[in-house]
Protein backbone atom coordinates (compact mmCIF):
# COMPACT_ATOMS: atom_id res chain seq x y z
CA UNK A 1 0.00 0.00 0.00
CA UNK A 2 2.83 2.36 0.85
CA UNK A 3 6.24 1.99 -0.68
CA UNK A 4 9.13 4.22 0.29
CA UNK A 5 12.34 3.91 -1.68
CA UNK A 6 15.60 5.59 -0.74
CA UNK A 7 13.79 8.58 0.64
CA UNK A 8 16.00 11.55 1.51
CA UNK A 9 15.13 15.03 2.63
CA UNK A 10 17.45 18.00 3.16
CA UNK A 11 16.50 21.07 5.13
CA UNK A 12 19.13 23.38 3.74
CA UNK A 13 22.46 21.84 4.70
CA UNK A 14 20.87 19.47 7.22
CA UNK A 15 20.00 15.99 6.03
CA UNK A 16 16.84 15.06 7.93
CA UNK A 17 16.24 11.77 6.16
CA UNK A 18 18.89 9.66 4.51
CA UNK A 19 17.92 6.93 2.04
CA UNK A 20 15.12 5.41 4.06
CA UNK A 21 13.25 2.52 2.46
CA UNK A 22 10.33 0.48 3.70
CA UNK A 23 7.04 -0.98 2.68
CA UNK A 24 3.70 -1.28 4.41
CA UNK A 25 1.08 -3.72 3.20
CA UNK A 26 -2.68 -3.46 3.32
CA UNK A 27 -4.29 -3.73 6.73
CA UNK A 28 -0.94 -3.53 8.39
CA UNK A 29 0.21 -1.27 11.20
CA UNK A 30 3.75 0.00 11.03
CA UNK A 31 5.28 1.65 14.06
CA UNK A 32 7.78 4.43 13.50
CA UNK A 33 10.16 4.46 16.37
CA UNK A 34 12.93 6.87 17.17
CA UNK A 35 14.03 9.69 19.43
CA UNK A 36 12.68 13.18 18.94
CA UNK A 37 14.16 14.79 15.85
CA UNK A 38 15.09 11.46 14.27
CA UNK A 39 13.19 12.16 11.05
CA UNK A 40 9.90 10.40 11.76
CA UNK A 41 7.75 13.47 11.19
CA UNK A 42 9.69 14.41 8.08
CA UNK A 43 9.04 11.01 6.55
CA UNK A 44 5.34 11.32 7.37
CA UNK A 45 5.15 14.81 5.92
CA UNK A 46 6.55 13.52 2.66
CA UNK A 47 4.16 10.56 2.52
CA UNK A 48 1.23 12.93 3.08
CA UNK A 49 2.56 15.27 0.34
CA UNK A 50 3.06 18.15 2.77
CA UNK A 51 6.74 18.21 1.87
CA UNK A 52 8.48 17.15 -1.30
CA UNK A 53 11.36 14.66 -1.08
CA UNK A 54 14.89 15.76 -1.97
CA UNK A 55 15.55 12.33 -3.42
CA UNK A 56 13.84 8.99 -3.54
CA UNK A 57 10.35 7.84 -4.24
CA UNK A 58 7.13 7.37 -2.30
CA UNK A 59 4.20 5.43 -3.71
CA UNK A 60 0.83 5.35 -1.99
CA UNK A 61 -1.52 2.79 -3.51
CA UNK A 62 0.77 2.83 -6.54
CA UNK A 63 0.60 6.61 -6.97
CA UNK A 64 3.75 8.73 -6.78
CA UNK A 65 3.36 11.50 -4.21
CA UNK A 66 5.15 14.03 -6.39
CA UNK A 67 3.26 13.16 -9.57
CA UNK A 68 -0.33 13.22 -8.36
CA UNK A 69 -0.39 14.63 -4.84
CA UNK A 70 -4.13 15.29 -4.89
CA UNK A 71 -4.94 11.64 -5.62
CA UNK A 72 -2.59 10.61 -2.79
CA UNK A 73 -4.23 13.07 -0.38
CA UNK A 74 -7.64 11.58 -1.12
CA UNK A 75 -6.38 8.21 0.14
CA UNK A 76 -4.73 9.49 3.30
CA UNK A 77 -6.04 10.53 6.67
CA UNK A 78 -3.36 12.48 8.51
CA UNK A 79 -2.99 13.53 12.10
CA UNK A 80 0.14 15.72 12.28
CA UNK A 81 2.24 15.99 15.40
CA UNK A 82 0.79 19.44 16.04
CA UNK A 83 -2.91 18.72 16.11
CA UNK A 84 -4.34 20.95 13.33
CA UNK A 85 -7.39 22.33 15.10
CA UNK A 86 -9.06 25.68 14.60
CA UNK A 87 -9.43 26.74 18.22
CA UNK A 88 -12.23 29.23 17.58
CA UNK A 89 -14.43 26.68 15.85
CA UNK A 90 -16.92 24.35 17.45
CA UNK A 91 -15.92 20.69 17.22
CA UNK A 92 -18.90 19.80 15.01
CA UNK A 93 -18.30 22.73 12.65
CA UNK A 94 -14.66 21.77 12.43
CA UNK A 95 -15.42 18.17 11.52
CA UNK A 96 -18.04 19.24 8.98
CA UNK A 97 -15.52 21.60 7.41
CA UNK A 98 -12.95 18.81 7.18
CA UNK A 99 -15.54 16.47 5.69
CA UNK A 100 -16.63 18.99 3.07
CA UNK A 101 -13.06 19.92 2.27
CA UNK A 102 -12.49 16.25 1.56
CA UNK A 103 -15.41 16.09 -0.82
CA UNK A 104 -18.16 14.69 1.40
CA UNK A 105 -21.66 16.07 0.88
CA UNK A 106 -25.20 15.54 2.14
CA UNK A 107 -26.03 12.06 3.34
CA UNK A 108 -22.44 10.79 2.96
CA UNK A 109 -21.17 13.58 5.16
CA UNK A 110 -23.85 12.94 7.79
CA UNK A 111 -23.11 9.22 7.86
CA UNK A 112 -19.33 9.67 8.16
CA UNK A 113 -19.76 12.47 10.67
CA UNK A 114 -21.87 10.22 12.91
CA UNK A 115 -19.38 7.39 12.51
CA UNK A 116 -16.27 9.34 13.48
CA UNK A 117 -18.03 11.07 16.36
CA UNK A 118 -18.98 7.65 17.68
CA UNK A 119 -15.55 6.09 17.03
CA UNK A 120 -13.68 8.96 18.65
CA UNK A 121 -16.17 9.22 21.51
CA UNK A 122 -16.69 12.96 21.21
CA UNK A 123 -20.49 13.04 20.99
CA UNK A 124 -21.02 15.10 24.13
CA UNK A 125 -18.45 17.80 23.36
CA UNK A 126 -19.50 18.52 19.76
CA UNK A 127 -21.18 21.81 20.57
CA UNK A 128 -18.19 23.15 22.46
CA UNK A 129 -15.52 25.41 21.06
CA UNK A 130 -12.34 23.44 20.54
CA UNK A 131 -10.32 25.73 22.81
CA UNK A 132 -12.60 24.67 25.67
CA UNK A 133 -11.83 20.98 25.17
CA UNK A 134 -9.31 19.05 27.23
CA UNK A 135 -6.13 17.77 25.60
CA UNK A 136 -7.61 14.29 25.32
CA UNK A 137 -10.72 15.44 23.52
CA UNK A 138 -8.70 17.67 21.25
CA UNK A 139 -6.59 14.68 20.27
CA UNK A 140 -9.72 12.65 19.58
CA UNK A 141 -11.15 15.46 17.49
CA UNK A 142 -7.91 15.49 15.50
CA UNK A 143 -8.20 11.75 15.01
CA UNK A 144 -11.85 12.11 13.94
CA UNK A 145 -10.70 14.65 11.36
CA UNK A 146 -8.21 12.15 9.95
CA UNK A 147 -10.93 9.50 9.66
CA UNK A 148 -13.81 11.53 8.29
CA UNK A 149 -13.34 10.60 4.64
CA UNK A 150 -12.83 6.90 5.40
CA UNK A 151 -9.29 6.86 3.98
CA UNK A 152 -7.59 3.51 3.28
CA UNK A 153 -4.33 4.92 4.72
CA UNK A 154 -3.87 6.57 8.10
CA UNK A 155 -0.74 8.50 9.03
CA UNK A 156 -0.66 9.33 12.72
CA UNK A 157 2.24 11.35 14.07
CA UNK A 158 2.58 10.74 17.79
CA UNK A 159 -1.16 10.20 18.24
CA UNK A 160 -0.89 9.56 21.97
CA UNK A 161 1.52 12.29 23.00
CA UNK A 162 0.35 14.29 25.97
CA UNK A 163 -2.48 11.94 26.85
CA UNK A 164 -3.01 10.24 30.19
CA UNK A 165 -2.57 6.46 30.46
CA UNK A 166 -6.28 5.73 30.16
CA UNK A 167 -6.62 7.86 27.06
CA UNK A 168 -3.53 6.24 25.58
CA UNK A 169 -5.09 2.81 25.97
CA UNK A 170 -8.28 4.02 24.29
CA UNK A 171 -6.47 5.52 21.32
CA UNK A 172 -4.37 2.37 20.95
CA UNK A 173 -7.49 0.24 20.95
CA UNK A 174 -9.02 2.49 18.32
CA UNK A 175 -5.92 2.19 16.14
CA UNK A 176 -6.00 -1.58 16.40
CA UNK A 177 -9.69 -1.65 15.46
CA UNK A 178 -9.06 0.61 12.49
CA UNK A 179 -6.21 -1.59 11.30
CA UNK A 180 -8.73 -4.28 10.39
CA UNK A 181 -9.50 -2.37 7.25
CA UNK A 182 -6.83 0.31 6.98
CA UNK A 183 -3.13 0.66 6.47
CA UNK A 184 -1.66 2.61 9.36
CA UNK A 185 1.66 4.24 10.05
CA UNK A 186 2.03 5.74 13.48
CA UNK A 187 5.04 7.20 15.17
CA UNK A 188 6.13 7.40 18.74
CA UNK A 189 9.22 7.87 20.81
CA UNK A 190 7.76 5.75 23.58
CA UNK A 191 8.91 2.19 23.06
CA UNK A 192 6.26 0.34 25.02
CA UNK A 193 3.71 2.11 22.88
CA UNK A 194 4.84 0.18 19.83
CA UNK A 195 4.85 -3.29 21.27
CA UNK A 196 1.32 -2.93 22.56
CA UNK A 197 -0.02 -1.77 19.23
CA UNK A 198 1.87 -3.50 16.46
CA UNK A 199 4.45 -6.13 15.63
CA UNK A 200 6.14 -4.32 12.80
CA UNK A 201 8.50 -1.47 13.43
CA UNK A 202 11.03 0.65 11.71
CA UNK A 203 13.55 2.34 13.93
CA UNK A 204 14.86 5.67 12.76
CA UNK A 205 17.78 7.52 14.23
CA UNK A 206 19.50 10.60 12.80
CA UNK A 207 17.50 10.28 9.61
CA UNK A 208 18.51 6.69 8.98
CA UNK A 209 16.54 3.50 9.27
CA UNK A 210 18.75 1.56 11.65
CA UNK A 211 16.46 -1.44 11.89
CA UNK A 212 13.19 -2.75 10.61
CA UNK A 213 11.24 -5.90 11.05
CA UNK A 214 9.21 -7.66 13.69
CA UNK A 215 9.75 -6.57 17.25
CA UNK A 216 10.37 -10.18 18.32
CA UNK A 217 13.21 -10.55 15.80
CA UNK A 218 14.79 -7.30 16.87
CA UNK A 219 14.55 -8.39 20.48
CA UNK A 220 16.20 -11.68 19.61
CA UNK A 221 19.02 -9.86 17.83
CA UNK A 222 19.56 -7.55 20.75
CA UNK A 223 19.44 -10.56 23.03
CA UNK A 224 22.64 -11.81 21.46
CA UNK A 225 24.41 -8.66 22.45
CA UNK A 226 23.43 -8.87 26.07
CA UNK A 227 25.79 -10.41 28.61
CA UNK A 228 25.07 -13.74 30.25
CA UNK A 229 24.99 -13.80 34.02
CA UNK A 230 25.90 -16.71 36.18
CA UNK A 231 25.93 -17.26 39.93
CA UNK A 232 27.83 -20.25 41.18
CA UNK A 233 28.77 -21.64 44.55
CA UNK A 234 32.45 -21.92 43.74
CA UNK A 235 35.84 -20.32 44.31
CA UNK A 236 36.21 -17.10 42.37
CA UNK A 237 39.52 -17.71 40.62
CA UNK A 238 38.57 -21.19 39.47
CA UNK A 239 35.36 -19.90 37.94
CA UNK A 240 37.16 -17.19 36.04
CA UNK A 241 39.72 -19.62 34.65
CA UNK A 242 37.17 -22.19 33.61
CA UNK A 243 34.87 -19.74 31.88
CA UNK A 244 37.66 -18.21 29.87
CA UNK A 245 38.53 -21.61 28.47
CA UNK A 246 35.05 -22.15 27.03
CA UNK A 247 34.89 -21.45 23.31
CA UNK A 248 33.01 -18.24 22.51
CA UNK A 249 33.02 -16.84 26.00
CA UNK A 250 34.59 -13.40 26.24
CA UNK A 251 34.95 -10.52 28.65
CA UNK A 252 34.41 -12.45 31.83
CA UNK A 253 34.00 -10.13 34.77
CA UNK A 254 33.23 -10.86 38.38
CA UNK A 255 30.32 -8.86 39.66
CA UNK A 256 30.59 -9.88 43.26
CA UNK A 257 31.44 -12.54 45.77
CA UNK A 258 29.24 -13.22 48.75
CA UNK A 259 28.68 -16.04 51.24
CA UNK A 260 30.61 -18.58 49.22
CA UNK A 261 29.05 -17.90 45.83
CA UNK A 262 30.36 -15.79 43.00
CA UNK A 263 28.42 -13.77 40.42
CA UNK A 264 29.99 -13.32 36.98
CA UNK A 265 29.01 -11.76 33.72
CA UNK A 266 30.34 -12.64 30.29
CA UNK A 267 29.60 -12.12 26.64
CA UNK A 268 29.17 -14.86 24.11
CA UNK A 269 30.39 -14.76 20.56
CA UNK A 270 28.28 -17.22 18.57
CA UNK A 271 25.74 -19.68 19.92
CA UNK A 272 24.60 -18.41 23.25
CA UNK A 273 22.71 -21.55 24.25
CA UNK A 274 25.65 -23.85 23.52
CA UNK A 275 27.90 -21.64 25.63
CA UNK A 276 25.44 -21.76 28.49
CA UNK A 277 25.29 -25.54 28.27
CA UNK A 278 29.09 -25.70 28.44
CA UNK A 279 29.13 -23.56 31.55
CA UNK A 280 26.61 -25.95 33.14
CA UNK A 281 28.71 -28.99 32.25
CA UNK A 282 31.92 -27.51 33.65
CA UNK A 283 30.15 -26.63 36.85
CA UNK A 284 28.91 -30.18 37.21
CA UNK A 285 32.39 -31.60 36.60
CA UNK A 286 33.76 -29.43 39.40
CA UNK A 287 30.81 -30.06 41.64
CA UNK A 288 29.78 -26.42 41.72
CA UNK A 289 26.17 -25.51 42.36
CA UNK A 290 24.61 -23.26 39.71
CA UNK A 291 22.28 -20.72 41.30
CA UNK A 292 21.60 -18.65 38.20
CA UNK A 293 22.53 -18.89 34.53
CA UNK A 294 21.02 -16.94 31.66
CA UNK A 295 20.19 -13.59 30.18
CA UNK A 296 17.47 -11.24 31.26
CA UNK A 297 14.43 -10.39 29.13
CA UNK A 298 15.31 -7.71 26.61
CA UNK A 299 13.22 -4.59 26.80
CA UNK A 300 12.58 -2.47 23.78
CA UNK A 301 14.71 0.22 25.35
CA UNK A 302 17.64 -2.16 25.30
CA UNK A 303 16.88 -3.15 21.71
CA UNK A 304 16.86 0.48 20.80
CA UNK A 305 20.06 1.36 22.62
CA UNK A 306 21.89 -1.61 21.18
CA UNK A 307 20.79 -0.69 17.66
CA UNK A 308 21.75 2.94 18.06
CA UNK A 309 25.15 1.96 19.40
CA UNK A 310 25.68 -0.54 16.64
CA UNK A 311 24.85 2.03 13.97
CA UNK A 312 27.30 4.44 15.60
CA UNK A 313 30.07 1.88 15.84
CA UNK A 314 29.77 1.38 12.10
CA UNK A 315 31.16 4.83 11.63
CA UNK A 316 27.77 6.34 11.17
CA UNK A 317 26.91 4.11 8.24
CA UNK A 318 23.50 2.47 8.43
CA UNK A 319 23.84 -0.89 10.08
CA UNK A 320 23.09 -3.02 7.08
CA UNK A 321 23.10 -6.23 9.06
CA UNK A 322 20.60 -4.75 11.44
CA UNK A 323 18.24 -4.14 8.58
CA UNK A 324 17.10 -7.68 8.31
CA UNK A 325 13.73 -9.01 7.32
CA UNK A 326 11.76 -6.53 5.22
CA UNK A 327 8.63 -5.28 6.90
CA UNK A 328 6.22 -6.08 4.15
CA UNK A 329 4.17 -9.19 4.18
CA UNK A 330 0.84 -7.62 3.37
Amino acid at each position, binding site marked *: MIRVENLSKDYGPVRALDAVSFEVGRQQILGFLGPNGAGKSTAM*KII*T*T*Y*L*APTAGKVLVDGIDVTEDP*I*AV*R*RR*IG*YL*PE*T*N*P*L*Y*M*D*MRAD*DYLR*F*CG*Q*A*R*GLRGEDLRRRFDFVVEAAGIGHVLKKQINQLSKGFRQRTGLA*QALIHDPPVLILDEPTSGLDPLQIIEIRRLIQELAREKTIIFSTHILSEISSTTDDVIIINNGRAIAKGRIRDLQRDAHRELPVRASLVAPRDAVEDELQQIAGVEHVSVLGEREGHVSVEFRVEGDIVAAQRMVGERAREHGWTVLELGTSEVTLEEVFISLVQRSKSHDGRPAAEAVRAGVSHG
Partner: protein
Amino acid sequence: MGNVGIIFRREFRAYFDSSIAYIFMIVFLLLMGGIYMSSFFLAGAADMRGFFGNLPLFNLFFLPAVTMRLWAEDKRIGTMELLMTLPMKAQEIVVGKYLAALAFYAIALAGTLTIPVMISAVGNPDVGAMVSGYLGSLLLGAFYLAVGIFVSGLFKDQIAAFVVALMFCLFFYFAGTPLVVATTDGWISGLGTFLENYVGISGHFDDIQRGVVDVRNVLYFVSMTALFLVLNTLSLEGRKY
Protein backbone atom coordinates in the same frame (compact mmCIF):
# COMPACT_ATOMS: atom_id res chain seq x y z
CA MET B 1 -20.18 23.96 -3.20
CA GLY B 2 -16.74 23.95 -4.77
CA ASN B 3 -13.44 23.86 -2.94
CA VAL B 4 -13.07 27.64 -3.10
CA GLY B 5 -16.50 28.01 -1.52
CA ILE B 6 -15.68 25.63 1.34
CA ILE B 7 -12.48 27.50 2.20
CA PHE B 8 -14.21 30.85 1.76
CA ARG B 9 -16.98 29.95 4.17
CA ARG B 10 -14.64 28.81 6.92
CA GLU B 11 -12.34 31.81 6.59
CA PHE B 12 -15.20 34.27 6.42
CA ARG B 13 -16.80 32.83 9.54
CA ALA B 14 -13.42 32.86 11.28
CA TYR B 15 -13.43 36.67 11.12
CA PHE B 16 -16.65 36.75 13.09
CA ASP B 17 -15.71 33.90 15.43
CA SER B 18 -13.21 36.20 17.06
CA SER B 19 -13.70 39.76 18.24
CA ILE B 20 -11.34 41.15 15.60
CA ALA B 21 -14.11 41.55 13.04
CA TYR B 22 -16.24 43.72 15.27
CA ILE B 23 -13.36 45.84 16.49
CA PHE B 24 -12.19 46.33 12.94
CA MET B 25 -15.64 47.31 11.65
CA ILE B 26 -16.22 49.81 14.44
CA VAL B 27 -12.81 51.45 14.12
CA PHE B 28 -13.01 51.54 10.32
CA LEU B 29 -16.46 53.13 10.25
CA LEU B 30 -15.76 55.60 13.07
CA LEU B 31 -12.45 56.71 11.66
CA MET B 32 -13.44 56.91 7.99
CA GLY B 33 -16.80 58.47 8.74
CA GLY B 34 -15.55 60.74 11.50
CA ILE B 35 -12.60 62.22 9.63
CA TYR B 36 -14.68 62.77 6.55
CA MET B 37 -17.57 64.34 8.44
CA SER B 38 -15.32 66.68 10.42
CA SER B 39 -14.40 68.50 7.21
CA PHE B 40 -17.67 67.88 5.37
CA PHE B 41 -19.51 70.84 6.86
CA LEU B 42 -16.49 73.14 6.52
CA ALA B 43 -16.07 72.28 2.85
CA GLY B 44 -19.78 72.45 2.21
CA ALA B 45 -19.49 70.38 -0.96
CA ALA B 46 -21.88 67.51 -1.69
CA ASP B 47 -19.25 65.01 -2.82
CA MET B 48 -17.13 62.23 -1.32
CA ARG B 49 -13.73 63.35 -2.60
CA GLY B 50 -12.43 63.74 0.91
CA PHE B 51 -13.65 60.29 1.87
CA PHE B 52 -12.15 58.44 -1.09
CA GLY B 53 -9.00 60.56 -0.91
CA ASN B 54 -8.30 59.31 2.61
CA LEU B 55 -8.83 55.67 1.72
CA PRO B 56 -5.46 54.73 0.17
CA LEU B 57 -3.65 56.01 3.25
CA PHE B 58 -6.01 54.58 5.87
CA ASN B 59 -6.28 51.24 4.13
CA LEU B 60 -2.51 50.93 4.49
CA PHE B 61 -3.22 50.21 8.15
CA PHE B 62 -6.63 48.60 7.96
CA LEU B 63 -6.17 46.01 5.27
CA PRO B 64 -2.91 44.40 6.41
CA ALA B 65 -4.76 43.87 9.69
CA VAL B 66 -7.44 41.97 7.78
CA THR B 67 -4.99 39.73 5.92
CA MET B 68 -2.24 39.24 8.51
CA ARG B 69 -3.86 36.15 10.02
CA LEU B 70 -4.78 34.41 6.75
CA TRP B 71 -1.69 32.21 6.54
CA ALA B 72 0.40 33.27 9.53
CA GLU B 73 -2.19 31.88 11.92
CA ASP B 74 -2.41 28.55 10.09
CA LYS B 75 1.36 28.29 10.25
CA ARG B 76 1.45 29.09 13.94
CA ILE B 77 -1.30 26.74 15.12
CA GLY B 78 -0.44 23.89 12.75
CA THR B 79 -3.55 23.91 10.56
CA MET B 80 -1.24 24.60 7.64
CA GLU B 81 -0.58 20.87 7.49
CA LEU B 82 -4.30 20.19 7.39
CA LEU B 83 -4.92 22.67 4.57
CA MET B 84 -1.91 21.62 2.52
CA THR B 85 -2.86 17.95 2.69
CA LEU B 86 -6.46 18.49 1.62
CA PRO B 87 -7.31 17.16 -1.83
CA MET B 88 -7.38 20.70 -3.23
CA LYS B 89 -5.12 22.77 -5.41
CA ALA B 90 -3.10 25.44 -3.62
CA GLN B 91 -4.70 28.17 -5.73
CA GLU B 92 -8.19 27.09 -4.66
CA ILE B 93 -7.24 27.60 -1.04
CA VAL B 94 -5.53 30.91 -1.83
CA VAL B 95 -8.58 32.23 -3.68
CA GLY B 96 -10.99 30.98 -1.00
CA LYS B 97 -9.04 32.74 1.74
CA TYR B 98 -8.59 35.84 -0.37
CA LEU B 99 -12.27 36.14 -1.22
CA ALA B 100 -13.12 35.87 2.48
CA ALA B 101 -10.91 38.87 3.18
CA LEU B 102 -12.34 40.76 0.21
CA ALA B 103 -15.92 40.04 1.30
CA PHE B 104 -15.07 41.22 4.79
CA TYR B 105 -13.65 44.48 3.43
CA ALA B 106 -16.66 44.88 1.12
CA ILE B 107 -18.96 44.67 4.13
CA ALA B 108 -16.93 47.30 5.99
CA LEU B 109 -17.07 49.48 2.90
CA ALA B 110 -20.81 48.90 2.57
CA GLY B 111 -21.12 50.19 6.10
CA THR B 112 -20.04 53.63 4.85
CA LEU B 113 -22.94 53.77 2.38
CA THR B 114 -24.76 55.87 4.94
CA ILE B 115 -22.54 58.75 3.77
CA PRO B 116 -23.82 58.92 0.15
CA VAL B 117 -27.36 58.45 1.44
CA MET B 118 -26.90 61.43 3.76
CA ILE B 119 -25.25 63.57 1.08
CA SER B 120 -28.10 62.83 -1.33
CA ALA B 121 -30.52 63.99 1.34
CA VAL B 122 -28.79 67.32 1.98
CA GLY B 123 -27.44 68.11 -1.47
CA ASN B 124 -27.29 67.11 -5.10
CA PRO B 125 -24.15 65.00 -5.53
CA ASP B 126 -22.67 63.48 -8.70
CA VAL B 127 -23.94 59.90 -8.32
CA GLY B 128 -21.65 58.62 -11.08
CA ALA B 129 -18.55 59.86 -9.28
CA MET B 130 -19.69 58.24 -6.05
CA VAL B 131 -20.36 54.89 -7.77
CA SER B 132 -16.97 54.93 -9.45
CA GLY B 133 -15.44 56.05 -6.16
CA TYR B 134 -16.77 52.92 -4.48
CA LEU B 135 -15.63 50.80 -7.39
CA GLY B 136 -12.16 52.31 -7.03
CA SER B 137 -12.20 51.67 -3.28
CA LEU B 138 -13.05 48.04 -3.89
CA LEU B 139 -10.28 47.70 -6.49
CA LEU B 140 -7.81 49.42 -4.20
CA GLY B 141 -8.81 47.09 -1.36
CA ALA B 142 -8.51 44.07 -3.66
CA PHE B 143 -4.91 45.07 -4.41
CA TYR B 144 -3.89 45.75 -0.79
CA LEU B 145 -5.52 42.50 0.33
CA ALA B 146 -3.70 40.49 -2.34
CA VAL B 147 -0.40 41.99 -1.16
CA GLY B 148 -1.44 41.22 2.42
CA ILE B 149 -2.30 37.56 1.84
CA PHE B 150 0.96 37.06 -0.05
CA VAL B 151 2.99 38.56 2.79
CA SER B 152 1.04 36.59 5.39
CA GLY B 153 2.14 33.43 3.59
CA LEU B 154 5.76 34.35 4.26
CA PHE B 155 5.43 34.67 8.02
CA LYS B 156 4.49 32.66 11.05
CA ASP B 157 4.05 35.79 13.11
CA GLN B 158 0.98 37.93 12.47
CA ILE B 159 2.60 41.16 13.62
CA ALA B 160 5.48 40.63 11.21
CA ALA B 161 2.97 39.90 8.45
CA PHE B 162 1.12 43.12 9.31
CA VAL B 163 4.21 45.34 9.33
CA VAL B 164 5.73 43.93 6.15
CA ALA B 165 2.40 44.05 4.28
CA LEU B 166 2.09 47.67 5.36
CA MET B 167 5.58 48.41 3.99
CA PHE B 168 4.76 46.72 0.68
CA CYS B 169 1.52 48.66 0.29
CA LEU B 170 3.27 51.84 1.37
CA PHE B 171 5.74 51.38 -1.46
CA PHE B 172 2.97 51.06 -4.03
CA TYR B 173 1.18 54.01 -2.49
CA PHE B 174 4.17 56.35 -2.50
CA ALA B 175 5.46 55.21 -5.89
CA GLY B 176 2.59 57.05 -7.57
CA THR B 177 2.47 60.23 -5.52
CA PRO B 178 3.43 63.48 -7.36
CA LEU B 179 6.37 64.18 -5.04
CA VAL B 180 8.01 60.80 -5.62
CA VAL B 181 7.25 60.86 -9.33
CA ALA B 182 8.76 64.34 -9.78
CA THR B 183 11.83 63.59 -7.66
CA THR B 184 12.53 60.28 -9.39
CA ASP B 185 12.09 61.83 -12.79
CA GLY B 186 14.66 64.41 -11.70
CA TRP B 187 17.21 61.64 -11.04
CA ILE B 188 16.51 59.35 -13.93
CA SER B 189 14.33 60.85 -16.60
CA GLY B 190 11.24 58.74 -17.26
CA LEU B 191 11.58 56.45 -14.24
CA GLY B 192 9.18 58.50 -12.16
CA THR B 193 6.58 58.48 -14.92
CA PHE B 194 7.07 54.74 -15.29
CA LEU B 195 6.45 54.31 -11.56
CA GLU B 196 3.35 56.46 -11.79
CA ASN B 197 1.89 54.57 -14.72
CA TYR B 198 2.76 50.98 -13.93
CA VAL B 199 3.62 50.69 -10.25
CA GLY B 200 2.07 53.43 -8.16
CA ILE B 201 -1.49 53.42 -6.93
CA SER B 202 -2.31 57.12 -6.66
CA GLY B 203 -2.69 58.04 -10.33
CA HIS B 204 -4.97 55.12 -11.11
CA PHE B 205 -7.02 55.49 -7.99
CA ASP B 206 -7.46 59.25 -8.39
CA ASP B 207 -8.73 58.78 -11.94
CA ILE B 208 -11.36 56.25 -10.91
CA GLN B 209 -12.35 58.28 -7.88
CA ARG B 210 -12.96 61.33 -10.10
CA GLY B 211 -15.31 59.22 -12.19
CA VAL B 212 -12.87 58.26 -14.96
CA VAL B 213 -13.23 54.49 -15.10
CA ASP B 214 -10.59 53.81 -17.73
CA VAL B 215 -9.83 50.22 -18.74
CA ARG B 216 -6.16 50.90 -18.04
CA ASN B 217 -6.90 51.89 -14.46
CA VAL B 218 -9.09 48.86 -13.82
CA LEU B 219 -6.54 46.61 -15.51
CA TYR B 220 -3.80 47.99 -13.26
CA PHE B 221 -5.62 46.92 -10.09
CA VAL B 222 -6.85 43.61 -11.48
CA SER B 223 -3.44 42.56 -12.78
CA MET B 224 -1.63 43.66 -9.60
CA THR B 225 -4.14 41.66 -7.55
CA ALA B 226 -3.71 38.62 -9.78
CA LEU B 227 0.07 38.96 -9.61
CA PHE B 228 0.16 38.78 -5.82
CA LEU B 229 -2.32 35.90 -5.68
CA VAL B 230 -0.12 33.97 -8.09
CA LEU B 231 2.95 34.84 -5.99
CA ASN B 232 1.10 33.58 -2.93
CA THR B 233 0.32 30.28 -4.66
CA LEU B 234 3.92 29.93 -5.82
CA SER B 235 5.29 30.59 -2.35
CA LEU B 236 3.01 27.86 -0.98
CA GLU B 237 4.16 25.39 -3.60
CA GLY B 238 7.77 26.40 -2.99
CA ARG B 239 7.40 25.77 0.73
CA LYS B 240 7.45 22.03 0.06
CA TYR B 241 11.06 22.01 -1.10
